[in-house]
């Protein structure tokens, strides 16, 4: 297991390093002078030059990359262009909002997707099954920003049940959760369809398994067979699906954060790209990349711990 852990960790380090290189190249390929954009129309050439020097843009590109690379591995992601705040602090300040949004999205998708998939499997071939199938495909097909806008128009503007913008009163968890309902619905609704389809297919397979037939032969109640013996097995592929889905939810979070004017790393990086705040762009993307790689590493280690075949095949 130790060898497996070391190999997986090494792979994670390589992935992060390659991601850093790609990120650096992409950032510097974007047109537009970051110093001019940041300082605005009234800045003089001397001011722009001073900012370029401060941002290290006067250095050869390989020196800039080396500084970025070595700084990143020691936790120094640089400082924001104008406010001069440490980038790592700025990103970590915004990260909880995005994580809360993704967690809310997962809750919505699981809370609606599993019962719907289960319901459809039990009533296989019925009208209800077909309706669930159509709805599942529909919510998968509709982009999250469309869901976000309609949810906002209906529940915030028309009905005024829920807030339209912001993340709630700082320090008031109740208000923050209240402000999370609509954005997390927008992020998670598409995944309701995926999960419902996955659970339905998985349930149908499990319901044909021999241990379920045996349970039926013993005369156990249908409810007990379905929820205690079939669903607990059928739901396992959903966990794997959600692991993959976190990356996609991160990108959906960008739209939700913009539409609902919420803080978060998605909005942070969007604003930073528009203003060519390069240290903030690289820092934000790097932190989210590391987070994603770490989550996948943890998932791999859990799977490896549970299944010796995975360890030996690596």
């Amino acid at each position, binding site marked *: 297991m130790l060898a497996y852990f070391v190999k997986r960790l090494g792979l994670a380090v390589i992935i992060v390093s390659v991601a850093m290189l790609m990120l650096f190249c992409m950032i510097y390929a974007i047109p537009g002078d970051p110093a001019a954009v940041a300082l605005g129309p009234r800045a003089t050439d001397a001011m722009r030059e001073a900012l370029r020097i401060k941002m290290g843009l006067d250095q050869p590109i390989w020196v800039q990359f080396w500084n970025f690379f070595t700084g990143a591995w020691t936790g120094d992601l640089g400082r924001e262009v104008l406010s001069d705040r440490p980038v790592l602090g700025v990103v970590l300040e915004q990260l909880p909002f995005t994580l809360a949004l993704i967690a809310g999205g997962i809750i919505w998708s699981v809370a609606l997707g599993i019962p719907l998939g289960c319901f459809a499997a039990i009533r296989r071939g019925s009208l209800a099954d077909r309706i669930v199938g159509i709805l599942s495909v529909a919510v998968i097909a509709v982009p999250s920003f469309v869901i976000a806008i309609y949810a906002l128009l209906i529940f915030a503007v028309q009905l005024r*049940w*829920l807030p339209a*913008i912001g993340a709630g009163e700082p320090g008031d968890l109740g208000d923050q959760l209240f402000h999370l309902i609509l954005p997390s619905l927008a992020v998670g609704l598409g995944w309701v369809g995926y999960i419902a389809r996955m659970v339905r297919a998985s349930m149908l397979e499990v319901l044909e398994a021999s241990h379920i037939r045996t349970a039926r032969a013993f005369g156990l109640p249908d409810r007990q067979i379905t929820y205690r013996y079939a669903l607990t097995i059928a739901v396992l592929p959903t966990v794997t699906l959600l692991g993959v889905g976190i990356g996609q939810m991160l990108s959906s979070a960008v739209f939700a954060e913009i539409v609902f004017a919420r803080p978060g790393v998605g909005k942070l990086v969007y*604003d930073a790209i528009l203003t060519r705040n390069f240290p903030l762009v690289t820092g934000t993307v790097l932190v989210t990349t590391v987070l994603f790689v770490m989550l996948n590493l943890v998932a791999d280690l859990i799977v490896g711990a549970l299944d010796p075949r995975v360890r030996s095949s690596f």
Partner: protein
Amino acid sequence: MRQPFGQPSRRSVLAGLGAFGVAASAMPRMAISQDGRVLRVRSYSDLQVLDPAFWVSLPEADIITAIYPPLVAPMPGDVWSWKTVAAKSIEQIDDLTVAFELLDGITFSGGHGKMTAEDVKFSIERIADPDNESPYAGDWSALDQVEVTGELTGLIRLKTPFVPLWTTTLPTPASCIVSKAAFEAAGGQVTTDPVAMSGHYLLTEWVPKQRTVLTRNPDWPGEPGGFEEIHIIPIEDPATAELGFEAGDLDYTWTAVSSLPRLKEDPPAGSVVLEKPSLAYVWLGMNEAVAPFDNPNIRRAVQHAIDRQLVVDAAYYGAAELGNGLVAPGLPGSRDGVTYDYDPDRARELLEQEGATGITVTLDILNQSERLLAAQVIQANLADVGINAEIKQNDSGTFWSLGASDSPDYDTMQMYLQRFSMQPDPSWATVWFTPEQIGVWNWSRFDNARFKELHDMGLVEADETKRDAIYREMQDLMDESGSFVFFTHEVVGVVHSEDIAPGLKPNGEPLLTEFKSA
């Protein structure tokens, strides 16, 4: 700075869980400002630099003038004028001297003592000092020195007469007073942690990307601010802000121009929709240094090819008026018309004469809906006379660098659709088209010595009639060059709750210290 998520208590966790349960059946929400204590306004960006010498965006300037009182500030209303704030009195004694006396009893927060004329001297001279590299040094380019004549009195001495002093220098953050002792102790500059505040309001909380809270300053010796707290919420997208207002989460926001007809037709319940004249100017520019627009006849053909009224009507849904130059109506130099007309036959004739019928050119625009609509009408107008225009949409970071001398597009950009905002003095508009601005903001590379001469004259000419003539002639010169097609000054849409009386400049920009309960 407050932690965004704070420390949740057991009680708040339970309350949060309960909120999920009751959300679907909750009664329509009540606006939290209905008790008149809290004002919630939208800003289009979060704050980065709260320093009168180094601020970056207008929302920062709004906050700065609320926490660091300026000598004078714009008067709310429909006419550009000013009123005293930190100054008890201020007057121009002669062309080169302004005498001021501070309001007695202004104190800096944090135990930094009383505001004195020494603080005025420090605040103004630090902006003017070239060594400090303030982007606003130009506001005080005519300053010689600030002379302290008493604890609360002093003289602002100028090297040359400077007419924009009373329109675009004094009633702006350029006259905000900071504490000399506190700023020197802070290293000479502040960013997001302001020190020694003394205005109508104090900045008491900043949650990045979420909100800034201003709290009424109990020690302000003048008329107090209208609300106990002002919550400034950064929302970049105007459509999101409009929805936030309609949902009751905001008391004041400005709107997209394209939303104005809808909002005026059907205002949200309990709201007031206002339309204010903007000082901005929108124009199509041609790069004189790049073919085919190095040929003045082809530039003139473009001027004749475009139906300006149609472009404005299409892009702004009929909400904006046709504009005739850089200078907005009501300011010296505002014109009633341009020197060219819509004449497609003449445009075809000029193109044929130059053998340019059927040429293909590029039109760079910012990726905003109004610009795209305008560009599409321009494209159709040009196609009608035999010019194929390809529209290139750019994000803001790319677009704003296109005409800079170190931009890779500098020698290839042909046409651009541009919008500049300005302050209520025509020199603020003409300065960007002087020869010194070639490679910076003069993207057309319009190089006219007479234009520069007139610009310099306008800065020192106090006679209103002569100034009017100067700025009219400057815009005529721009027309003559063929490089500019002027469209509109736009309008500013504002929507606010009927429970408040907003303090607005004539162009609709907010004056936070002037907002009151209705």
